[in-house]
C-alpha cells in the first residue's frame, strides 16, 4: 500500500470489513475470450481481403466464424456466470438502460454472436454461399469493433477506479484484439503461404509493441492522479502483483515481439506459434493484474 499520502500518522482503528475483489478471474477470462473472438474476425477479415486467392490463407473462411463462435460463447458464458442473478440477464433486453455501456455492449455482442452463428452455419453446411458470407463478414467486422471496445467504456464508467481511463483502455482493448486474433490464427497457419504468415507475425509484433508501450507509460508515468499513483503502488512496491505485472509484460509482449520479429525474418512457423502461445498466456496475466489492482484500494 502507498503510505505517502497519510496525514498526521492517521490510522483506521475501527471499521467494518470492506468488500474484497468484486470482479475477479471470470471477468479476466471474459475479456480474454472476447479479445480472441473479435480479433479473429478483424485479423481474419484483413487476411482474407489481402490474400484474395484463398489458397494463401487456406481454410480461413471456415476458421473465422468457428473460432469466433467458440470464444464468443466462452465470453458470454462467463459473463452470465459472473452475474449474481444470471437468470435476470433478460432484464438487459426487457429494461435496457442506454447510458450503461454494459447494456449497449450486451446488445452489440448478442448481435455479433447471431451473425457469427449464421456464418458458422453457412461455412459448415452451405458452402456455396460466398456472396452472402462476404456480406455477413462485413457486418461482423462492423460489430466486432464496438464489441471489443465497449468493455473499455464500462471500465471508464466504473469511476471509482481511476486507473481505468476510457481513452487508454480503448486502445488497450483494440491492441489486445489484434494480438489475440493474430495469435490464435497463427496456430492454423501451417498450410498458409509464407506471405500470409509474415502478415500475421507483423500484426502480432505491432500489437504487442503498442500494448507494451501503453503499459510502460502507465508504469513509469502514472503520478498525475493520487488514486492512480496509489493503485500503481501495488505493482511498484514489489510483491505478488509486481511479479505478475512483469510476468504479463515479458510473456505477453516482450517475448512475442522478439519471436515474431525472428519469425518475420526467418519465415519460421514454429517461432510464430511459440510467440502466439506466449502472447495468449501473457495477455491473460496482464489483463488480470490491471483488473485487480484498482480493486485493492479502500474507497472509503
Amino acid at each position, binding site marked *: 500500500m502507498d503510505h505517502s499520502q497519510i496525514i498526521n500518522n492517521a*490510522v483506521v482503528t*475501527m471499521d467494518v470489513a470492506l468488500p474484497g475483489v468484486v470482479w475477479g478471474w471470470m471477468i479476466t477470462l471474459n475479456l480474454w475470450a472476447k479479445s480472441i473472438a473479435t480479433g479473429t474476425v478483424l485479423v481474419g477479415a484483413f487476411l482474407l481481403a489481402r490474400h484474395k486467392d484463398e489458397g494463401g490463407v487456406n481454410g480461413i473462411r471456415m476458421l473465422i466464424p468457428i473460432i469466433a463462435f467458440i470464444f464468443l460463447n466462452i465470453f458470454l458464458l462467463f459473463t452470465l456466470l459472473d452475474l449474481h*442473478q444470471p437468470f435476470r440477464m433478460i432484464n438487459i433486453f426487457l429494461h435496457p438502460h442506454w447510458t450503461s455501456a454494459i447494456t449497449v455492449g450486451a446488445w452489440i455482442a448478442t448481435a455479433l454472436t447471431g451473425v457469427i452463428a449464421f456464418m458458422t452455419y453457412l461455412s459448415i453446411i452451405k458452402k456455396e454461399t460466398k456472396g452472402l458470407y462476404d456480406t455477413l463478414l462485413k457486418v461482423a467486422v462492423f460489430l466486432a469493433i464496438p464489441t471489443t471496445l465497449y468493455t473499455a467504456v464500462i471500465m471508464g464508467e466504473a469511476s471509482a477506479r481511476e486507473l481505468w481511463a476510457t481513452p487508454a483502455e480503448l486502445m488497450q482493448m483494440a491492441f489486445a484484439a489484434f494480438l489475440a486474433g493474430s495469435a490464435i490464427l497463427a496456430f492454423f497457419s501451417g498450410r498458409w503461404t509464407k506471405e500470409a504468415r509474415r502478415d500475421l507475425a507483423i500484426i502480432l509484433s505491432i500489437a504487442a509493441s503498442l500494448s507494451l508501450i501503453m503499459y510502460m507509460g502507465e508504469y513509469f508515468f502514472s503520478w498525475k492522479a493520487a488514486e492512480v499513483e496509489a493503485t500503481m503502488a501495488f505493482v511498484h512496491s514489489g510483491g505478488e502483483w509486481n511479479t505478475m505485472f512483469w510476468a504479463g509484460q515479458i510473456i505477453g509482449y516482450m517475448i512475442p515481439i522478439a519471436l515474431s520479429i525472428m519469425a518475420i525474418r526467418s519465415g519460421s512457423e514454429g517461432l510464430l506459434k511459440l510467440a502466439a502461445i506466449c502472447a495468449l498466456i501473457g495477455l491473460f496475466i496482464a489483463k488480470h493484474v490491471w483488473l485487480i489492482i484498482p480493486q485493492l484500494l*479502500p474507497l472509503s
Partner: protein
Amino acid sequence: MKLGFLVDLDLCMGCKACEVSCKVENEVPLSSWRLRVKYVDQGLFPDTSRTFTPLRCNHCESAPCERICPVSALHYLENGIVNIDKDRCIGCAGCIMACPYGAIYMDPETNTADKCTYCAHRIASSMMPACVVACPVEANIFGDLEDPMSNISRYISRDKKVQVRKPEKMTIPKHFYVGGGQAQLNPQASLREEGYSLFNNITHLKHIGKGH
C-alpha cells in the same frame, strides 16, 4: 424537493447508534452495512486524537451507479434519492465498481446490490431516516436542500466549512460533512491495515454475495 444529509463531525461521538438502527430498520444482513462509523486515530502519543466518521451513500446528483446500471435497478426518485429496485437487479456489480465511496454492497441473502436509500420507505410515511432518529446528539441532519428554512439548508448557509467526499469525482454528492479533515474523508489519507485493532478485526470480505 431535493433531500440531503449533513453530518456534523464535531458532534459525532462514535456511539454507532446510527449504524445499529440502520441495520435493524433495513434488516441489513450480517457482513453488510448501509451505514458505518469509521474510527480514525491521528497524531503521536501523547498528542493524539480520535475521530468518528459516519459513511453512507451520498445520493449523488450525477450518480455513477445510476449511469452504469444496465437495467435501471438504480434510479432517481423525484426527491433526489438514488433508490434501488432489488427485483430488477441482475447482480453484475457494475454499481459497486462505479461508486467512488464504496457505499454499495452485494446482499448475501438476495444476491442483488443494495445500499442506503435514506430510508425512502420511512420518508414516504413522513418519518425521518432511522439513523437520524437514533442519533443522541443530532449529528445527523436531514432535510430538503431546496427549502432555505430547513435545518440542513440553514446549517449549510451558516457554516463555511461544509465539505463533501471526493469532490474531484464530479458526482455532486448530496451528503455533506461539517468539521473533520482529510484523514476522515479521504481514505488514502489514513493507514488501513488488515488485522485486529481497537475492538474488532479490520479486514476484507472473502466473498461478495453468495457463492462467490
